[in-house]
Structures are given as C-alpha cells and as structure tokens.
C-alpha cells in the first residue's frame, strides 16, 4: 500500500510540473501599420510572379503604406490592401476582409466584357437525350447528334467526383466524337482537373512545367517540375475530342485545357483562355483576414509562361460571332458540328 502511495505521489508531482503554459511568440500587433507590414512582407516572401508581372514590390509598398496608415475604418483599410494586391494584376490574388465577406479580387478589363457563352442556349437548342443531373450533378452531358456526344464541366470545384465522368462516358460509349466544353469554367481543384483529364488519354505525357517559389528572393524558384497527365478512370475515350474554350476559362480549367490540347486526338476550338495559372495559397493576417497569393509560375511544354497568355485554340472562333435575340446561335458549337460532320 505504501509503495503505491509513493508511486502516486511521484506521479502527482510530475503532473503538476506538466501544467506549464509557455509563450512561444509575442501576441501579434493588430494595428493597421503592423497588419500592412505583415501582408506586404508575406507577399514579398511568397508571391511567385513579381518578375513575370514586372512589379517593383518595394515601390508598391512605399506608395500604399501611407494610405494604409491613414485609413479611418476597416473598410477603408481593406480597400487599400486590396488595391495594393491588385497592382499584381493577378486573378489568383485576393483579400477576404473577415468572415463572410466577399473576396476582393483583381478584375482584368476582359472580365467586364459581355459573356459569349450561354449554357441554357446549348441545353435548349443543341443538346438531346441529356443525362440525368441526379446521376452526374457536376456535369452537363448529352448528345449533339447520333454520334457526337457532349460533356460540359461548369467548374472543377470539389473532390473525387471522377466517378460521375466514368458514368457519363459509360452512357455515351457509342459516341465516335466527343465535345468537351469548359467555356466559362473558373477552375477549382487542380488534382481533380487532372484526374478528369486522365479519362481522355491512354498513356502518360508531360503537358507543362511549374516552378514553385521556395525562398525569400523573388527569383527563388524550384527547377522546372514536370506536370504529367496520366490515364485514369474505368475507361478512356480515344475518339476525336473537340475542346471548347473561351476567355473566361481560368486556373485549373486552363491546366485541363493545357493537358488535353497536346493529345493527338484533341482539337481545341473557341477563344484563348484567361491566362491565370498561379496556384494560390491562403495566408492569414493577425486580425483573421485572409488573402491568397500565387505560388508558382506555370509553363507550356515549350517553356512559355502561361500567365496572362492563356491556352490558344487551334480553331479560332472570334468573340461576338454568335448573333443576338431569337436567332442567337452558339457559333463555337456550330463550328464544331461542321468540323464533326466532315470527319463523319
């Protein structure tokens, strides 16, 4: 009994010792000056495309710091931070000033132009025997003719819904030609986009390269890392594929387009993609606001920077060629159907 009491006493003594509550770092300063400096410094350390964008970040900081310190409210302060980030001209760079707030994102001039794509027009005027949305909720799929199938990816948001594409390809297995429509796809999950793209190839191939920021200097970037497209899914479609793109295709949807366009059975049709490729990470300010920064530079297989250039189609259908009103047509889809007809 005595033995056990001694043991428990020792344990209790150690338990008391274990209650130490250390302070590893000083509590963060949440003044506008400190928050501005934190964001400027983190962006300086993290952002990957200062040289691509030709931005002198020191100058940008010198311009915006006095404005940030003069801000009279959180709203005004957020505007200054957002304006500073917008000087990077990068759609992947944004500020979310608090829980539930809308992200303040850079908008390019082309983002304000009218849309040249109407998904409801495709559904009304072109698509027949549509697959049930209950079966493929992330896709819009059906038939354009007896042998030409159609699959639209509105976005690549989410995880692990490649099984839906397997189901769609299974339903459309009698098609000899396939139209894949990513127009107005804003992107989403890079890994998912490549997983889906893998349903359209039966062999691995390098489709691009990335260099990832890995140090404090603006040109501290990894050596080029190959991006590889690998076959995925239960079945791969090996017939002729028409990939439809426009100026509102961004981010991982551009990775998808980049991966598919190098396949011998793929014809890209429409307009050049948006040219937004930075792979953002989220950073957090001491006041809980978050912001996103691009962390890599993506290159085509011939080592040209994708950012701001986009993925150009092989068959160009100029914007604004779809007409208006009741006679409105989808010029890109009309062009594809004409091409498909010539190939039988």
């Amino acid at each position, binding site marked *: 009994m005595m033995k056990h009491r001694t043991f428990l006493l*020792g344990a209790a003594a150690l338990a008391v010792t274990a209650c130490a509550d250390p302070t590893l770092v000083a509590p963060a300063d949440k003044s506008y000056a400190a928050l501005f400096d934190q964001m400027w410094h983190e962006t300086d350390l993290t952002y990957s495309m200062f040289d691509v964008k030709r931005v002198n970040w020191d100058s940008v900081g010198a311009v915006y710091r006095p404005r940030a310190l003069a801000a009279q409210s959180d709203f005004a302060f957020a505007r200054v931070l957002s304006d500073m980030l917008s000087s990077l001209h990068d759609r992947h760079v944004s500020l979310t000033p608090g829980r539930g707030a809308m992200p303040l994102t850079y908008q390019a001039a082309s983002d304000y132009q009218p849309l040249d794509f109407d998904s409801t027009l495709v559904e009304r005027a072109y698509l027949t025997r549509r697959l049930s949305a209950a079966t493929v909720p992330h896709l819009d799929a059906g038939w354009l003719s007896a042998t030409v199938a159609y699959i639209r990816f509105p976005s690549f948001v989410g995880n692990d819904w490649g099984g839906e594409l397997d189901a769609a390809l299974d339903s459309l297995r009698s098609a000899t030609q396939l139209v894949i429509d990513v127009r107005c796809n804003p992107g989403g999950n890079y890994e998912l986009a490549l997983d889906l793209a893998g349903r359209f190839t039966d062999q691995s191939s390098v489709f691009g390269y990335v260099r*990832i920021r890995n140090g404090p200097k603006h040109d501290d970037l990894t050596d080029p890392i190959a991006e590889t497209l690998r076959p995925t899914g239960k079945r791969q479609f090996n017939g002729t594929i028409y990939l439809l793109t426009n100026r509102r295709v961004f981010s991982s949807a551009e990775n998808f387009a980049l991966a598919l366009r190098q396949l011998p059975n793929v014809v890209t049709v429409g307009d050049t993609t948006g040219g937004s490729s930075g792979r953002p990470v989220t950073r957090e300010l*001491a006041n809980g606001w978050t912001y996103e920064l691009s962390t890599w530079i993506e290159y085509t297989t011939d080592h040209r920077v994708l950012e701001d250039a986009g993925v150009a189609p092989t068959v160009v259908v100029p914007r604004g060629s779809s007409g208006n009103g009741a006679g409105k047509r989808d010029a890109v889809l009309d062009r594809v159907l004409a091409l498909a007809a010539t190939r039988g």
Partner: protein
Amino acid sequence: MLTKHAARLALVVLAAVPVAVLAQGEPCARPTSLVASFGLTQSDRADAAINGSQYQGRGPQLSVGAAANVRSICIEAFATGGARYLRPVGGGFGSERILEGRAELSVLKPVAWSSDNRATLAVGLSAQVTATNTRHAFGDASGVSKYRLGVGSLGPAFDASYRAMGGRLFAGASIPLVSVVDHPYVAVSSLDPMAGLRVATWSSLRGGNVDLGYERPLSRLVTGTVAYQVNGIRYDDVRPVRTLSQMLTFGFRLTRPTERR
C-alpha cells in the same frame, strides 16, 4: 534554455554518484525490457509558414519503447505519437489539427556508477526523427491548408538514474547538433513533396528533449512507469518555427526476471 537545463541536471546527477565507480554487474540503468505507456500531451506551436501565431492544444499520447544492454552499451529506442486539436492563444485566429510523431534511438555508454548501482550515468549519441502534419483551418472559414514539419537530428545524449523511494528516478536529455529539416516554404504541394528539405546546424535549429521519470516494481515482471517529457524546437529560417511538447505518461515496463535491478 533547454541546454542549460540539461547541463544542470547532469551536474546534479554527477554529484550524486560516488567516486568509486568500478563495475559490479551491468551498469545500464534500464534493464533489457519493453515499455508501453499512455498519457496526455500539451502541444504549443508557432509556425511562420502558417501564420506565425501560437496554437495550443492537448490530446492523448501513446508511446512504446525498448531497452537493451549489449556488451555494456545501453541501447534505448522510443516512439511516441498522438493527434491533437489546437486553438490559438494570444488573440490568433483559426484552428489546427495536428498529427505528431517522434522516434528516438539512443546509444549510451555508462561512464559512472556507484558500486551498488544506486546511481548511474551514461552518455552517448541520440538520433531523433520528429514529424508533424498540420491541417490549418482559417479563421474566416475560407478553407484549410496543409503544412508539414519533419526534423531528423543527431546529437549528444545522457541518461542518469538514482535509486530512491523504493524505485528508480530517471533523468535524461538529448540535444540536436545536426539536423535535416523538411519544412515546405509554403503549404504542402502535391507537385514538390520534398521541396522544403534543408540541413540545419545548432546555429539555426536549437532544441532538445528532456525526460524525467520514476519507475517502481509492481510485480516480479512488471514495473510501473511515470514520465514527464519536454521536447522543444526553435528553428530559425525565413519561416521560423517554435514548438514545445510536454508529455505526461503512465505505463508499464516488462522485464525478464533475470534483468531486474
């Protein structure tokens, strides 16, 4: 700080060891044995690759170990791991879930012991691997990012024991002199799995592990153990890291009857 603490402990133990230290029996403090323990760990972390704020949390900890006495060399292996949910301290935001593991292998040579093995001191080398996966949820609920810290290190270690209170008190410490650090510069990316690998010496990575324990025979084969361990890392890089884990565990050591001391 930890180094000074370890040095002080060593001096206290050295003072307790009588001058007559010639061997009588095996001088390793721990017999050839297996040990398993369970307890609670408090983790404190501040990783500038995430946001630099300090996060703290407690969670269960499971540890296993083994000790062997091979030709008067004491070999001790130890592995521990646990999962914890961390909240910000000092006004930070967001939360973290971490999965943390540590393994240590020490090879120690007894250098001083009393004639009846009442007090022992062994010194040697310790190799350690620590790995932490962090899933950080941002304060504005905008999503999560994954981060990683892996440290493999080599450095001196000591282990001392003193028979008292019907059992044995232990004090040990190890210090990383040379380390390999895997700390991705930004969040973990699927395309560059090991891009953050760097070599760190004492000038950029300081830390250590201090172990205080008490063991008491409960039966012929089983010894009860209670241990308090502190493990800390101060990594100075572009993205500095500070970690401190405090672990309190209770367990059992299974010993061969002939190994009892």
